[in-house]
């Protein structure tokens, strides 16, 4: 067994050895600052890359949305009919849309002619 004094002496020797090999405060501080600036540069670079990636993704998404929406909407507009269009049709409107034939009866257009193949 060793006593407290010897333990203390051994630790003192260890401390002396450490202090001999210790870097100076100025050196440690300088390296710390260099590390900080390096880290900041890396962070800025990562942010720039991330921002560029986001911009690229948004641009691609917007152009895709624009092209798909324009192709989808055009046929809808040309084929669209208002649900109330039926109200615009008045009785006998088909008669008013044609040129009247002289000597013909209105009923001729409405009543189908009998076929010649009958008995």
């Amino acid at each position, binding site marked *: *067994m060793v*006593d407290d004094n*010897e333990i203390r002496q*051994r*630790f003192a020797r260890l*401390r002396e050895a450490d202090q001999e090999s*210790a870097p100076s405060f100025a050196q*440690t501080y300088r390296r*710390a*600052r260099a590390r900080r600036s390096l880290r900041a540069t890396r962070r800025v670079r990562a942010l720039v890359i991330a921002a560029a990636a986001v911009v690229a993704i948004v641009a691609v998404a917007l152009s895709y949305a624009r092209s798909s929406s324009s192709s989808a909407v055009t046929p809808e507009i040309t084929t669209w009919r208002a649900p109330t269009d039926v109200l615009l049709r008045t009785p006998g409107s088909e008669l008013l849309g044609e040129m009247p034939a002289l000597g013909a009866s209105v009923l001729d257009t409405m009543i189908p002619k009998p076929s010649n193949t009958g008995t």
Partner: protein
Amino acid sequence: MDEVELKLQLERAHADCFGWAMACCGRDRDDAEEVLQTVYLTVLDGRARYDGRSTFRTWLFGVIRRTAASERRKAWLRGEREAGRREAGSGAREAGVIAPDPFAPPDAEVEHESRRDGLHHALGQLAKRQREVLQLVFYHDLTVEEAAAVMHVSVGSARTHYARGKANLAAMLGDAKEL
């Protein structure tokens, strides 16, 4: 405390801090220096603030201890990832088996052997808390109460670690002496 005053305080405590950082990093000089750099930046950037509840040195030792633990965790995670990549790449190495470094200088082994006989080896055999409290008391001349504040444990717990650690260390150093 303004930045100039902080820098002055850090400079005064630097040698002591380096010794404590060495202890927190398993006596790895490079790791200790890296931890100190991180601590200085943390303190000077105001991410760790001294509130005056203890002495500046006690508070700073606490910051160093936490930073070293955090760096150790990061290094462990990096190691795990790298090990995973290596394993995926070769697939031949068994988990947990560390191959000897073929590029280690020949005197590294001798140095390693000589360390084994000394205080460094004996400290390495102790439990972490015991090692920490002995380092703080014998190396840095802190009281057990101050050591408890650095280690974020109760004074009673620190006393127990101190008593057990000292007994274990004395026994180990005594055994080494007899050999």
